[in-house]
């Protein structure tokens, strides 16, 4: 699964974009990346590095946060997509799963999933089938399907958000921190789903992830962002072997995994203040 050979051409290309929030806060300072069709591309980086911002720039959700792409271009299948509305982009097959869940609180879990199929024109039966598919992925959702999403647990909301994106049968999914708040075995499961959907249906993934360990096991290619710039990129295997990545992102030292108890012995540089 680590071979990037099934990358038959670039689907999405981000060229040197710059993003400013509120007209004054410069967040991305020239980010470029390309997402191959049918690949799983990971976007890594610490808190505030700009992963979410990059994804939102692509899905055009920035505008609703008073953010703006001021330079550079975003090209999807050869078309500039910066000026499309998010809905148009979804219709073209790009769906984003937003960070922090963003379920429709007052809708039930099932209604949430069904809104995912909003743009679909196919039959009720097809939609029903996909709904069942989501329920088989996440049995927990099936149990809670009649509850208002606002009253479900954090993890259940996360599953709902992912399930909802799957329901729109997209060509490309932008996943923002899918593993956040999920129990370990579910994290694995989510990435298995990513893998299945990717390999089985050829869906392309761009995922921002903090859990570098898992992300690099499932992704083909990775970019590492730091304070709004791409500082490193390479195939997942290369990244995993890189000593810096090992130390800072995987928590491994030469002696194997560091214990969280021992971290007190040294202080790191404070990168988030950069």
């Amino acid at each position, binding site marked *: 699964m680590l071979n990037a050979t099934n990358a038959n051409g670039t689907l999405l290309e981000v060229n040197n974009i710059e993003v400013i929030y509120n007209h004054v806060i410069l967040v991305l300072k020239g980010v470029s990346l390309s997402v191959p069709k049918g690949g799983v591309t990971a976007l890594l980086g610490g808190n505030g590095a700009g992963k979410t911002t990059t994804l939102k720039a692509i899905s055009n959700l920035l505008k*609703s946060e008073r953010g703006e792409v001021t330079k550079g271009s975003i090209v999807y299948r050869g078309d500039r997509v910066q000026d499309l509305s998010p*809905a148009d982009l979804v219709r073209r097959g790009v*769906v*984003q799963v*937003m960070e922090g869940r*963003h379920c*429709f609180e*007052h809708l039930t879990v099932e209604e949430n999933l069904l809104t995912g199929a909003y743009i679909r024109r196919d039959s009720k039966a097809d939609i029903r089938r996909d709904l069942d598919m989501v329920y088989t992925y996440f049995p927990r959702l099936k149990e809670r399907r009649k509850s208002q999403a606002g009253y479900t647990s954090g993890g259940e909301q996360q599953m709902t958000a992912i399930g909802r994106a799957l329901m729109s049968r997209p060509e490309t999914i932008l996943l923002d921190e899918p593993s956040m708040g999920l129990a370990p075995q579910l994290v694995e499961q989510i990435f298995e789903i990513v893998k299945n959907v990717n390999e089985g249906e050829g869906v392309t993934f761009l995922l921002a992830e903090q859990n570098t360990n898992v992300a690099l096991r499932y992704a083909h290619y990775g970019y590492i962002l730091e304070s709004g710039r791409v500082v490193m990129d390479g195939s997942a295997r290369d990244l995993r072997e890189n000593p810096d990545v090992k130390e800072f992102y995987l928590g491994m030292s030469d002696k194997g995994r560091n214990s969280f108890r021992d971290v007190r012995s040294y202080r790191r540089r404070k990168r988030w203040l950069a």
Partner: protein
Amino acid sequence: MPDTVYYALEVTLNGLMSGVMYALVALGFVLIFKASGIFNYAQGVLALFAALTLVGIMDGQVPFAHLINALFGTSLHHFGFKVPALIAILITAGVMTLLAVLVERYVLKHLVNQEPIILFMATIGLAYFLEGLGDAMWGSDIKTLDIGLPKGIDETIESVTNDWFGYGFFIDRLDIVATVIAALLVLALTVFSQYSKQGRALRAVADDHQAALSVGISLRFIWALVWSIAGVVALVAGIMWGSKSGVQFSLSLIALKALPVLMLGGFTSIPGAIVGGLIIGMGEKLFEFFVGPLVGGATENWFAYVLALVFLVFRPQGLFGERIIERV
């Protein structure tokens, strides 16, 4: 004294009918709130604007005549033809739809994902704007609106009840028409919002603009759609109220009668608007009937709100409103 019972019954019936009239206005609020979480302050002005436009078209008035005359020294007033009511209503509905599209395009589009109070404020700006525009377009003198709706006491009911009880009940025929129309509207809108894909999308948008965008719901379409429907509902309300009192500025103040209804029924419930209307209408009339004389009358305005308040203390989201989700 059985007379009091009959009176009270008559008051109750008429209260229910008034409630329907309030509900007609409240419906517009509900639609927009449900679809975007916007508390649309401009709803009353929308009703006024619709009614003004309708009358203006029916009379063949030249829009902005006064302005044009002032600028160019002309003396335009009327085109000199009259437009039949039905056609005028259709044209007005078209105007309201156009207005909805413009509102979406020049106001709402730029305010995606803002807090409710900001959106509320924007509708206030809109209310000011439309109030000025409506007056500038059609003039602020009083206009008679007559599209041939029946008015006045329904004599059949009066004589039948007179035969039965020895006391003839008063029911206004206009109210009967309003009730039928309101029932149809509520039915249609409930079906629309409960059983259609768009209906679900509406509720999704109200919950979270961004998430709705992210699943491909076009806020622009939804908003234009809902505002058009709300505009048409405003037209209906404008017609019913305008037939009674003529069309002029005060028509926009009927919104104030709709607010307690809204609060009681729940901001998000279409059936709530009608049930709320019935309770408020009946409650305020009965209170005025029994208690009003003791305290000097004119209690309706505040009592409607107090009644709604009492309900809210027990159900903070109104009778049928969506539960307010409180979690950490």
